[in-house]
């Protein structure tokens, strides 16, 4: 029984069957990659997991609780954090302020009217945020305004913001999309480090084979809204169906 159980999830947009009977099980403390050609329904599936879309049928259980019908912030409070394809951070705030927000969200829940304390006096949380910045090698940038940072740094910050929440499941939506090679390698290193040191459950949607095969414990191949195969990276590499649906296209 995995921490995330997706059962028979289907989603239609008008006449288009975006997802049809998707079944997926993400085991605790594993890295599960979902790959597939463009239009395979990867993003739709992810959006169904985080509350942005509600599937027409099926169920999504996280740690024994259904996530369907819950708002994104409620699902996050259950322990699911999400990294976006283009890094979503608070561009008007500094790096440290960016980090403080998930810290407050983790401690105080989805809303608390703490209007009279000072942010600077929350020593525990500041320390926690700074420790995380040290871990991701960004501590010297903590007073930097984030809007002017490189895409790789933004990704790194976004990842740190998710990690500081100590999520039980981290969802990554094409974390290296649109990145220069150097930034991609950087991100892969960071993800590997996270995997090794934090023992965290991750689900990655990815286009880049290099990223997937160097990280994933298990891979699900999605094509036309349905899972083709699910197996370990070694088996997937040689699988004829996969070659046909995906790798064939890629080469």
């Amino acid at each position: 029984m995995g921490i995330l159980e997706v059962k028979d999830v289907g989603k239609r947009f008008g006449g288009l069957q975006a997802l049809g009977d998707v079944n997926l099980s993400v085991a605790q403390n594993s890295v599960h990659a979902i790959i597939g050609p463009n239009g395979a329904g990867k993003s739709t599936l992810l959006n169904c997991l985080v509350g942005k879309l509600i599937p027409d049928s099926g169920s999504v259980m996280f740690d024994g609780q259904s996530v369907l019908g819950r708002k994104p912030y409620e699902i996050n409070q259950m322990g699911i954090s999400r990294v976006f394809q283009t890094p979503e951070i608070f561009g008007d705030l500094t790096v440290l302020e960016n980090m403080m927000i998930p810290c407050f969200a983790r401690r105080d829940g989805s809303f608390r009217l703490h209007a009279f304390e000072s942010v600077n006096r929350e020593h525990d949380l500041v320390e926690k945020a700074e420790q995380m910045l040290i871990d991701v090698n960004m501590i010297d940038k903590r007073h930097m305004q984030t809007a002017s940072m490189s895409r790789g740094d933004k990704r790194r910050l976004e990842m740190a913001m998710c990690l500081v929440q100590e999520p039980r499941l981290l969802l990554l939506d094409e974390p290296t999309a649109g990145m220069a090679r150097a930034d991609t390698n950087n991100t892969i290193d960071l993800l590997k480090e996270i995997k090794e040191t934090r023992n965290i459950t991750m689900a990655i949607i990815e286009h880049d084979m290099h990223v997937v095969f160097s990280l994933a414990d298990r891979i699900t191949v999605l094509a036309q809204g349905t899972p083709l195969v699910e197996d370990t990276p070694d088996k997937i590499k040689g699988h004829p169906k996969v070659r046909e649906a995906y790798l064939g296209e890629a080469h």
Partner: protein
Amino acid sequence: MLGLNTKDTTLLIVVAVLALGAPFILNPFPEASSLAQFNAGYPDLMQRFAIFGIFAIGFNILFGLTGYLSFGHAAFLGVGSYSAVWMFKLLGMNVLPAIALSIIVAGLFALLIGYISLRRSGIYFSILTLAFAQMSFNLAYSVLTPITNGETGLQLTLSDPRIFGQSATSDGGIPVTNLLPGFEMRETFTWEIGPWLFQFNTGYYLCAAFLLLAFYLSVRIFRSPFGLMLRAVKSNQQRMHYTGLNTRPYTLAAFVISGMYAGLAGGLLASMDPLAGAERMQWTASGEVVLMTILGGAGTLIGPVLGAGFIKYFENIFSKINDSVLHGWFGFMPDGMENAIIFVSHFFVGKSWHLTLGLLFMLVVTFLPGGLVEGGQRIGRLFRRKPAKDPKSADMKPAE
């Protein structure tokens, strides 16, 4: 001090000194001199500085932090004024219960309007608040006349019950507003030093006290986790949601708080001069507080106070300038040039003061989006070269 860091404490002290010393600071010119017309140290005007300062500080908590541009905030000020006048009519002339009711009623009204309007954002939010404010304004003029007294405006009369006071004074007049019996709002102590004349007015000092309190609370809010959340709302709502935060209650709380500030301002206006009219709720009045905040610098602490003071001061001075004043100034010039200058000046002074305001506003939005505060910072930077920032010693970067 008071839970603030050194920089904020300094700012608070500066504001306190300015507010308390205003009767001196705003009257720098001797009474008989020709420059006395630039003095602003008389009670009526000083009260307006403080009251509109409070209004703008409150508006800034919503607009400056969250970026939600309300075009209906005057409705809360109007509601506050009406509530206060009703307290004077029913209960008595003490201002404190009246102000308390103003804040509560405006807060509840803001809760209702905010709850509905905040379901949308961006320009839709602006239009919803505008629609609500215009509705309130139209209703105050029409069906709600029993409560608002329509076009005449709500006033005190000799037949008001005033159960904890008296309907009429012993000499048959309408009683005046007070803080404690005998401590009247209109009371002014004048102090003559040589050719200078300084006026100390009870009402002004009450307003100034509330201004300081309002300013202090806004500093605390800006520096708090709540304030940080509001700035995050402005920056990226999507990230907020996926970080487990529900933005709606945050924005609603900001809306209600700023509505209560507006209610306080309305209550104080009525306490200084116990009448209330629907024109206080018109959308041009809402536009005015937007102007003040932007002109001073939205999202900054001191900006709204500066903006309110600036606009109220120049409104007063510019609208006083008429032909004879202009002739007095430019009389030394050759006639043709004098007349030309006076002709051009006409566009900007006296009744045309709003033209100056509109132009100024366009210039500020176009060239100086950070308002007067940004202007000051730019000038400051010209004079001293910025010392290199030491990341270790810097605190979390505060919003100025």
